[in-house]
């Protein structure tokens, strides 16, 4: 039976655009503008989902983005919220969390088992005997969760934007709209956000029956539309409040991080369900939900209904129902005094019977338990909260609208650090101490009268202007008059329970009572034990009622109970939105394209991509790495080392600076030479090592290992500030390219390009100079890290490829071969050099790697020196030594990080191990017992498969260079 109404004045649907869809296999149609729920309800479908725990039938509850029991899947996406997600043509929808469909859910039997499953039952069952728990756990895990995830769902990248404004107004109801307009008229740039598709907040449903309120709404909407400095985001929710007024605003398209100078929270209130037996049946809904159905979507909530209320709002709901052509069989007012204004007369004139001082004791379920067939009304003693069974009235109806009170939508205020106090005038938490730059207006601020809500918006805007240094006129807001909009205790006990407080988690009144009996009688423990508020709606309709129940149990005023902490997000927010377009930055040298075309296999080193080795068809990595290394030993190899950190230290105090920064001496270093530079931290731990080339009296050029470059430069900057030396630091890591040509033919190859004398006498190991190559100024350094004869050429990085090509050409006749980081690691190992960060870890001190010779302990100061004086008094715990395996060794190849074992004790580990084609045996570095560090001594390495290999300590280099 169609529940669609004739055109309603402010309706959000487009009747000329029909939308066809299916739900649980049945075909339906709705209109563009419908949500899934409104279209189904219009089509007369009332069972929209099943509850999480007991699998009870559920329909509309809030119709405000917390109908968590109405989640559907379209086969592609899951956990789609029917109450707010727009209907799309061709959607094929099914309810989640059912076994066999929403009507015939095979799990509905769990409802009748509910007495077996009291609060916290799972803590008390299934664990004995322990061996059976995995069996029970499988069953429990099968029952867990809501929707089924589609593993083929595509990756979606949403944009994440940044927006700056003077004022962010969250909520475009009467107070938010008034606030935005007032602030904008004073010239502020305003962002106005509302989660609905249309501005107006409660004006789009609550006062919708009234001509005058519609006029107010239209005027406000028109004014906002013509105000250029109000930027409106509809269909957008403020997901959370973060430090310094940053509020991510979420729409279907993505997230905008709004950074405001001030924020007005005008988020309104959530209607709270009164609690009675079967208050969850499809057809029982909040009054505001009924109004939304009628006034936004032109859908009749039910044909003949009962309104249960404890405030004026319920009377307006009844009027809206009557206007929509529904019969109102009774209006049940829980208050002893009932309502005392014109609304009463109006309803009575329209034939509605009013039951003051009464309650709905239970909703009577239809025989199939899928809907309402009546309501049982009992007199209600407001003072004691007791229903009196004496004079009950049974009323036939197919729906119940509930309006007993509200809870502030104050999550953002809490997150901002707002102090909230409980107002007995309105039985609601209201802000009483707002953080700087954060303001509240409207019902979330405890202001209920429509005119005063607009005033309150203007008042908040005036406070914002004052906060921003302007002088606006004072705006006053009248204090709340008349009866409270919320009932202090709208709960009706029932021997059969099923009076739901939390619809997400199926939590009933007795669950709270029992939790308290077991000692979980403060709000946080109660939340954890009962799981109230932990479902997807995050307590929007349950937290306040939980607090009221606990206050009653403990016989304390509500404010003594306090609230649980409100965490982001306001509404659940998709991974894809939050992740957005992730920035995966990376650095490439100017030779990258060449490496790629030469078959390089790249590895990430910090932000850089570096060739690990160059692939060739039919050859293994192992083979290629050996070949690349052999080329260096036999003729020449070439490697792109442009990723190394490069720092210039210049100025009169340059040498002094380095003497303090590094462990060695630099003051007496001759121009044109290089020195080893070892950096420690203040605890004496090895941080990095590199090479310092003195290019002029006042110019040192440092190379730093790739992954430490940025950190070392930062530390140089920091210490320079502390020491106040006359030094300039220039980080030229990206500005210079670096190519290393190594091997016996290196001199001949490099000599083809450079004009200076490269002979050992003129340019020995450790020499460095500035010269010109190919007409370009370069820095040339003779190094010995991977081979005894090797040259580093440092050139402006845009010339890197040219130099690479020129060197390849120059070396062609010698069989020059590019090599990657894998071969480099092997080559330096063959020479016995350790790699900082590879052969050391975050706690290694220089004594453990045998670096005493690099420590100028006689200097007045260097970073880490004082700690070394302490460490130096202690016995070294482990020592890095070079080792070899017997040439004939044919067992399992030891790997890096295999342990050095002595009986039952771990003595150390292998840090580098490889087969050396030059030494023709397996060589490596390992930490060993310091007592076993002498050449010729033997220690045990345990390989992956557990076998013990005898390794022998040797001296380096591992092979005879001649």
């Amino acid at each position: 039976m169609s529940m669609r109404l004739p055109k309603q004045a402010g309706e959000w649907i487009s009747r000329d655009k029909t939308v066809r869809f299916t739900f649980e296999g049945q075909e339906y149609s709705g209109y563009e503008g419908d949500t899934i729920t409104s279209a189904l309800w219009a089509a007369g479908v009332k069972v929209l989902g099943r509850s999480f725990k007991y699998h009870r039938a559920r329909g509309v509850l809030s119709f405000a983005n917390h109908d968590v029991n109405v989640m559907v899947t379209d086969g592609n996406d899951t956990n789609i919220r029917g109450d707010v997600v727009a209907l799309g043509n061709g959607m094929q929808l099914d309810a989640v969390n059912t076994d066999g469909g929403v009507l015939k859910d095979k799990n509905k039997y769990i409802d009748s088992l509910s007495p077996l499953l009291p609060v916290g039952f799972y803590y008390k069952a299934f664990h004995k005997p322990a061996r059976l728990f995995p069996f029970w756990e499988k069953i429990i895990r099968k029952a867990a969760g809501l929707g089924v995830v589609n593993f083929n769902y595509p990756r979606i990248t949403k944009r994440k934007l940044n927006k700056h404004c003077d004022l962010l107004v969250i909520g475009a109801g009467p107070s938010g709209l008034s606030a935005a307009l007032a602030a904008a008229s004073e010239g502020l740039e305003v962002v106005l956000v509302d989660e609905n598709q249309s501005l107006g907040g409660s004006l789009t449903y609550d006062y919708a029956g009234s001509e005058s309120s519609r006029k107010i709404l239209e005027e406000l909407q028109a004014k906002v539309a013509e105000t250029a400095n109000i930027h409106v985001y509809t269909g957008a929710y403020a997901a959370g409040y973060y430090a310094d007024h940053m509020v991510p605003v979420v729409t279907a398209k993505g997230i905008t991080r709004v950074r405001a100078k001030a924020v007005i929270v005008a988020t309104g209130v959530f209607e709270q369900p009164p609690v009675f037996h079967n208050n969850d049946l499809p057809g029982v809904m909040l009054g505001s939900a009924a109004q939304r159905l009628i006034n936004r979507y032109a859908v009749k909530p039910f044909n003949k209904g009962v309104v249960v209320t404890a405030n004026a709002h319920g009377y307006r709901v009844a009027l809206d129902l009557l206007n929509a052509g529904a019969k109102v069989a009774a209006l049940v007012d829980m208050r002893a005094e009932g309502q005392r204004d014109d609304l009463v007369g109006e309803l009575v004139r329209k034939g509605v019977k009013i039951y003051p001082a009464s309650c709905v004791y239970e909703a009577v379920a239809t025989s199939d338990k899928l809907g309402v067939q009546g309501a049982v009304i009992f007199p209600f003693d407001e003072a004691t909260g007791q229903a009196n069974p004496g004079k009950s009235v049974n009323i036939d109806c197919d729906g119940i609208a509930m309006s007993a009170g509200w809870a502030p939508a104050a999550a953002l205020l809490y997150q901002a650090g707002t102090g909230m106090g409980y107002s007995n005038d309105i039985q609601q938490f209201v802000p009483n101490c707002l953080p700087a730059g954060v303001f509240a207006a409207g019902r979330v601020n405890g202001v209920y009268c429509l005119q005063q809500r607009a005033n309150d918006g203007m008042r908040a805007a005036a406070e914002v202007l004052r906060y921003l240094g302007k002088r606006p006129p004072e705006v006053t807001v009248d204090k709340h008059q008349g009866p409270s909009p919320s009932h202090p205790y709208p709960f009706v006990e029932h021997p059969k329970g099923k009076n739901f407080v939390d619809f997400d988690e199926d939590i009933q009144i007795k669950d709270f009572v029992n939790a308290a009996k077991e000692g979980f009688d403060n709000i946080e423990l109660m939340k954890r034990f009962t799981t109230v508020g932990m479902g997807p709606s995050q307590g929007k309709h349950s937290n306040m009622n939980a607090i009221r129940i606990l206050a009653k149990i403990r016989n304390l005023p509500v404010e003594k109970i306090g609230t649980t902490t409100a965490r982001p997000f306001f509404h659940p927010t998709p991974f894809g939105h939050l992740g957005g377009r992730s920035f995966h930055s990376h650095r490439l040298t100017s030779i990258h394209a060449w490496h790629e075309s030469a078959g390089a296999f790249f590895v990430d080193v910090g932000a850089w991509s570096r060739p690990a080795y160059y692939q060739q068809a039919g050859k293994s990595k192992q083979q290629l790495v050996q070949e690349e290394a052999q080329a260096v030993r036999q003729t020449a190899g070439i490697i792109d080392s442009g990723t190394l950190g490069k720092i210039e230290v210049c100025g009169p105090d340059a040498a002094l600076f380095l003497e303090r920064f590094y462990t060695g001496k630099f003051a007496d270093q001759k121009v044109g030479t290089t020195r080893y530079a070892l950096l420690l931290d203040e605890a004496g731990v090895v941080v990095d090592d590199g090479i310092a080339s003195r290019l002029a009296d006042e110019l040192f050029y440092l190379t730093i290992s790739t992954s430490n470059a940025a950190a070392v430069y930062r530390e140089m900057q920091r210490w320079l500030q502390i020491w106040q030396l006359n030094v300039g630091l220039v980080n030229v890591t990206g500005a210079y390219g670096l190519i290393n040509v190594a091997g016996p033919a290196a001199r001949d190859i490099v000599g083809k390009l450079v004009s200076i004398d490269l002979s050992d006498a003129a340019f020995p190991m450790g020499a460095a100079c500035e010269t010109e190559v190919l007409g370009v100024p370069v820095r040339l350094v003779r190094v010995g890290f991977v081979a005894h004869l090797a040259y580093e050429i440092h050139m402006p990085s845009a010339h890197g490829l040219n130099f690479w090509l020129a060197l390849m050409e120059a070396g062609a006749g010698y069989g020059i071969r590019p090599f990657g980081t894998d071969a480099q690691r092997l080559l330096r190992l063959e020479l016995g050099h350790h790699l900082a960060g590879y052969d050391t870890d975050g706690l290694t001190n220089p004594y453990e790697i045998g670096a005493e010779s690099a420590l100028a302990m006689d200097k007045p100061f260097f970073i880490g020196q004082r700690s070394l004086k302490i460490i130096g008094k202690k016995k070294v715990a482990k020592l890095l030594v070079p080792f070899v395996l017997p040439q004939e060794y044919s067992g399992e190849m030891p790997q890096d990080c295999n342990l050095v074992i002595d009986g039952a004790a771990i003595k150390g580990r292998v840090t580098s191990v490889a087969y050396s084609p030059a030494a023709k045996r397996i060589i490596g570095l390992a930490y060993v017992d310091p007592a076993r560090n002498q050449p010729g001594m033997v220690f045990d390495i345990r390989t992956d498969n557990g076998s013990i290999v005898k390794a022998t300590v040797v001296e380096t280099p591992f092979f005879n260079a001649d």
Partner: protein
Amino acid sequence: MTTPQTVMIRKTPVAYAQQALKPKMGELNGMEVALEFEGASVENARKQLLGVTDVSCFQRFSVKGPQAAAWLAAKGMNTPAAINSWDDAAPGTMILRLGGSEFLLEDQHSGDTCALLAKGFKQAEVAGVYKVQRADAAFILSGSEALDLLSELCMLDLRDSALGANAVVMTQVAGISATLLRQTLNGQQVYRIWCDGTYGPYMWDMLMEVAKELGGGAVGLSCHFKK
């Protein structure tokens, strides 16, 4: 020794990222540069909507140190008085004051101011001035949607009301350090972005990825500078 006599042409730092687009390349200041991607009519329209242009080939010269400002002034350069601001150092050459005591000069399109300064700089002769070797990837971002693009890649408020006409900001763009300012080029307000050249391909890719979504794309150098 066999030094080639011809001057070697450098590749732009973003060449790697551009190669798939197969732009028409030319040479400026000794560097290869993409002159045109899809033809003048497409790129002229794109320039108005959202265009990304590689101008890494512009000549640059940079110094830092306590005496840097004085040294530049002595060389006849106009230096900005305020920190983090830019100005014209000389006709056709802009100068960015990066923080307090570092200066970046850039010849717009062509010119030899930077080359002359570089030639005239001898480290040993000037105290308190240190040459800063640079290898920037540099971009022009033009068009009505440029701010929209930047609002995704940069967290700063870059509206005209917040970003002064002569302001220089050192910030993060697409998660990496970059220098950014706005400038008027042939009557059009454009944004200029510099980052370390080794991040150039990444930056180009990110700018293009977002630009394409917004209907924009690559614009060749010729579209902004008719030779």
